[in-house]
Each structure stands twice: as structure tokens, then as C-alpha cells.
């Protein structure tokens, strides 16, 4: 059918009547916030985004961009999963703890036998678990995340308890498991291959004119996963079902969607994504601690909410979350750049999360009023 006839029943097709994608609002907010920090920096005689040093040939402040991208990458990966959970009308409070537990288990299988010629002082298992091929800890790690996600999903789908409670339970239990694993001791000294997972550079410092890619694997993985899940959520049945369940679960069930099974799948994917973050985090730090990932779940939820993902379910997108993650990162770097005290940073961060939800509620009310 021709484009001109998209209007129906005598109404002209009106491209202006097309609802503007809410991602544009988030993008606008991102630009605005960057602008504010740029102005604040200029008032202090510096620049937020741009290179001010005469001896460096670059347009942008490359160091700051690199830090911003890396800062956001690992929690951003978690946020991709959390976004999908929120879209189906759920919530996942467990991701930070799942990172902690997965980090401990994964690292135990990534240890090297000899550290500077001496036996590994932090060895968890005997020699059989030393110097394993790098794929082993990765697979074990992802399996841990999958297990946690499956338990979350099965609890939510089949016991019908609120997702808040189910994942709160997992949040506490997984943190306990992380501490129990090695009696609260850190697990350290991974193999060289494992250490190069996050510290390596898969793409090899790419340069686009005067802008260069930070060239670190967590950022590469984040971007690849974001693209993958954007495509899945937009073009496949999985995405269609997710939005349908979040919009009107009864209607989705009535239409023949197995909503319970779909929920298990979504929570499982969120668990695996938390595990990916754990693998990258331990590889980056070359150690695992039981306290890893504390508060990550809230940061991930904040990224999604700032990116326009509605806690009521059904609305939001992976693209929105990526933009939300960018805003999140700009705010943190921005505060540092204007030398604002870290305590203020956290206070303002909290206010921004609340503000984003208030804005969402307000938009929703406006919409239902017509």
C-alpha cells in the first residue's frame, strides 16, 4: 500500500500525528546536561568535552570520554537485562549480588597455579582447577548467572509472588553465597588470558578522525550486546511478547502467549547479562571480592528509568537505556569535572532517579487524560 494512503477512513495520513519516539526526549536531556556541564566548566576556565591543551592534537577531551565510556560499560551491560525485566512489568533487585556471587565462583576457576614462582596463595581449589583454559571460567560464570536468573524467573512466574520480593530474596541470598564461597576472603591471581579479557582491546584503538575509540573490551562488549538486544527487542517475537506482557498481561495470555515461560526466559537473560558483567569486572580488577557489585542493581535500574523505561512496564527501549546510561555517566564525570564533593554526587544522583520517575508518572497522567 502506498505511503500516502496510510490514513484510514477518510482521515489523511499525517506524519505529524506519529507519536514522537520518547528516546528523543532522553537524547535532548543528554545534550542539555552535557551543555550545562560545558558551561559550568567554562566558568572555571576548563572544558567538559573539548580538548583545552595546546600540545595535544584532538578536538575532544579524550581522557574524559574514555573514562565515561568505561564507567558506564559494565553496569550498562547489567542495565540491558534489567531493562527487559522492567519492560515485562517486573523488577530485578538481585543483579548486583549476582555479580558478586558470580565473580567469586568464576575467579575460583580462573586462577593460575604459580604466582611469581610461588604456589597461588589465594588458591580455592587444588591443582586440578589451576590454569584452566579461559573458556572454563567464562562458561561457569555465565552458568551461575543463568541459574540465578532462572530461579528469579521461576519464582516470579510460578509462585506469583511479586518480582520485588523474589529478586530481593535472591539479592540477599546471592550476596550470602558470595561471602560463603571463600569465607569472605578475596579470590585473586587469575591466568594471563583471563586478565586480558577485560584489559585487552578487541578492536585495537580505532580512530575516527580526531575521535578515538577507548579500545577496551568492556565497552566493546557493552556496545555489541546493546545492538544485539536492541535488534531482538525491536524485530523479534521475543520483543513483541515482552512489550505485550508489560502492557496488558491478561490480554497477552488471552492471545495465546505463554506469559510464564516468557518471564522465565527474560529473567534468565538478565541473570546471564549480570554474569557477563561479573566476568568483565573480575578480569578488569584481576581479583574477586564478595562485596563486588553492591548497589549495581540500583544504578542499572536508574539508567533504565532515566532512559525512559517505565516501571509500570510496557514502555521503554534498549536505546533509551543506553542513552540513560550515557546521562548517568555524564553526570558522574560532570560532577568530578567541576570538583563537586563525592557526597553531593550521590545525593544528586538519588534526586535525578526520583525526578525521572516523577517525570514518567506525569507523562503517563497527561496521556490518560488525553
Amino acid at each position, binding site marked *: 500500500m502506498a505511503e500516502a494512503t496510510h490514513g484510514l477512513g477518510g482521515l489523511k495520513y499525517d506524519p505529524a500525528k506519529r507519536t514522537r519516539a520518547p528516546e528523543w526526549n532522553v537524547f535532548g536531556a543528554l545534550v542539555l546536561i552535557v551543555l550545562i556541564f560545558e558551561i559550568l566548566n567554562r566558568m572555571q576556565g576548563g572544558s567538559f568535552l573539548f580538548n583545552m591543551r595546546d600540545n595535544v592534537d584532538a578536538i575532544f577531551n579524550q581522557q574524559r570520554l574514555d573514562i565515561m565510556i568505561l564507567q558506564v560499560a559494565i553496569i550498562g551491560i547489567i542495565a540491558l537485562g534489567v531493562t527487559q525485566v522492567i519492560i515485562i512489568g517486573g523488577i530485578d533487585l538481585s543483579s548486583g549480588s549476582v555479580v558478586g556471587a558470580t565473580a567469586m565462583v568464576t575467579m575460583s576457576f580462573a586462577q593460575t597455579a604459580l604466582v611469581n614462582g610461588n604456589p597461588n596463595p589465594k588458591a580455592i581449589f587444588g591443582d586440578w582447577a589451576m590454569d584452566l583454559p579461559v573458556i572454563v571460567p567464562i562458561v561457569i560464570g555465565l552458568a551461575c548467572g543463568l541459574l540465578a536468573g532462572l530461579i528469579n524467573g521461576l519464582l516470579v512466574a510460578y509462585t506469583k509472588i511479586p518480582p520485588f520480593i523474589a529478586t530481593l530474596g535472591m539479592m540477599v541470598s546471592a550476596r550470602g553465597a558470595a561471602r560463603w564461597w571463600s569465607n569472605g576472603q578475596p579470590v585473586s591471581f587469575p591466568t594471563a588470558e583471563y586478565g586480558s579479557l577485560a584489559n585487552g582491546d578487541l578492536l585495537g584503538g580505532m580512530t575516527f578522525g580526531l575521535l578515538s575509540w577507548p579500545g577496551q573490551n568492556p565497552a566493546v562488549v557493552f556496545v555489541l550486546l546493546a545492538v544485539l538486544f536492541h535488534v531482538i527487542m525491536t524485530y523479534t517475537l521475543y520483543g513483541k511478547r515482552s512489550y*505485550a506482557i508489560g502492557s496488558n498481561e491478561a490480554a497477552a495470555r488471552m492471545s495465546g502467549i505463554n506469559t510464564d515461560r516468557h518471564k522465565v526466559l527474560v529473567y534468565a537473560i538478565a541473570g546471564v547479562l549480570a554474569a557477563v558483567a561479573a566476568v568483565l569486572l573480575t578480569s578488569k580488577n584481576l581479583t574477586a571480592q564478595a562485596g563486588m557489585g553492591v548497589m549495581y542493581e540500583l544504578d542499572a535500574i536508574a539508567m533504565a528509568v532515566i532512559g525512559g523505561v517505565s516501571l509500570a512496564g510496557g514502555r521503554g527501549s534498549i536505546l533509551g537505556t543506553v542513552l540513560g546510561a550515557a546521562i548517568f555517566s555524564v553526570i558522574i564525570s560532570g560532577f568530578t569535572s567541576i570538583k563537586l564533593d563525592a557526597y553531593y554526587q550521590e545525593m544528586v544522583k538519588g534526586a535525578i532517579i526520583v525526578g525521572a520517575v516523577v517525570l514518567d508518572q506525569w507523562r503517563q497522567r497527561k496521556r490518560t487524560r488525553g
Partner: protein
Amino acid sequence: MSKVILETRGLTKHYGGVHALDDANFILHEGEHVAVVGDNGAGKSTFVRQVTAVEQRTSGDVIFDGQPVSFSGPLEARQAGIETVFQTLALADDLDVPSNLFLGRELFKFKLGPFSWLDRKTMRDRTMEALATTAVKIPNVDNPIRNMSGGQRQCVSIARTAAFASKLVIMDEPTAALGVQETAQVENIIRGLKDRGIPMILISHNLRQVFDLVDRIVVFRRGRIVASLRKDETDGNDIVSYITGVKGGTDATYA
């Protein structure tokens, strides 16, 4: 007489001690449009809920398309060919019109379990065709239906039913919340079904509409079928008499 598409024999539903539906014997022929009328609580919606298996009947038989059936749920009823517009809209507000029309029966470019690739273009084109025949007024089908008026949403819901209608369509008060113009659109869709020879059960309070659209009128009163009249052998006053109990007299057992 032509083939019987739906028949209920002694269909009964009790909610605890409440006899919501008692011994309903109902016949619908191929291509026939029948209205079910009655006062609030007369058992109309209960009757529909038993036929579409939203609820499980207490006793009685449902014979659909020549076979005794016992659907486990509305989904199975739909798969057998019974399309229903329920009073509560079964739409996902955050999806656009094609997604709602094809909810649960999406078309694919290729299948890969839950990650099957949607054929969005074909679904959209088919949606445009389906809506064009119904004269529903929607400026842009790519918008989420959240932003549409109640009438437009109801029209989407009914267009979905009409588009996939195969053996039987049931509409439970499809125009209850609609304005004059939107009601006319829905009635046009119903006439389209008649032209296509698809049988329909219409539940309605609007007697003008009923006389306009259907061949036969079945009156429910206090859980029982008290009359089944051809349109041309009755009139509005007659029907009202049955609805209110002036005629039909089975009340004796309840009084």
C-alpha cells in the same frame, strides 16, 4: 434449514447457589446472525463465557461445528474458530495497531523459537487492508494504541476479530462505550461479516441496533432463555415484554 454451527443443550452454570444460567438450549445456523438480549444479570455474558470457555460450565453440552466440544480455555476456543470481542478490551496499549491485530499469531520472516524474526511489513499491509474494509478512522497505525480514543481502540479490537473470523464471531456489547459515529463503524463491520456469511452472536442492549443487524433475537431472563424470535415476526415492544417478564411467564418457578 442450513447446517447448525453452534448448539448448546441444557447449558447450565451455577456460581455457588446462584443459578446464573439454567438449561440453555440454543441453536445457531450457518451464516445466521443472532442477538442475545436481556436485562442486566439475565445470563447473557455468562452464556458467552461458557461457550468461549472463559469459565467452565456446570453441566450441559456445547456442540460446535458438528462436534461436542469442551474447550479448556478461550485460547482453545479461538483456535477452533470462535473469535470473541469481550467487554473488557484485550489489547496491549503500548503496541501499535498491527502488533495488536496480530498479537499471538504473528507472521514471521523466519522461525527461531522465541527469537523468530517478525514480518512487520506484511503484518502492517494486512492490517491496512483489514482496517480499510471496516472504514475505521485511524490517522496513523504505527502509533501505540494508548494514544487513541476509546472508539478507535474498540474498532481495532473488533477489526481484529473480523479479520481473523473463520467459523463464529461473538461480540459482547461491542458498542456500549462508543459514540454515534463509532457505533456506525462497528455496525458496518458486522454487516461485512454477514455478507461474508460468517455467523455471529451479538450481545446488545440496543434494540434499534439489534433489529438493524440480526436475523433472530434470543431473550434471556433470570438465567433462562425465554424466547427465540425471528426478526420479522416480532417488534420492539414484544421483545421488551419478554425482557421484563410481562410475557414468557417462566417466572412462576422463581416467584
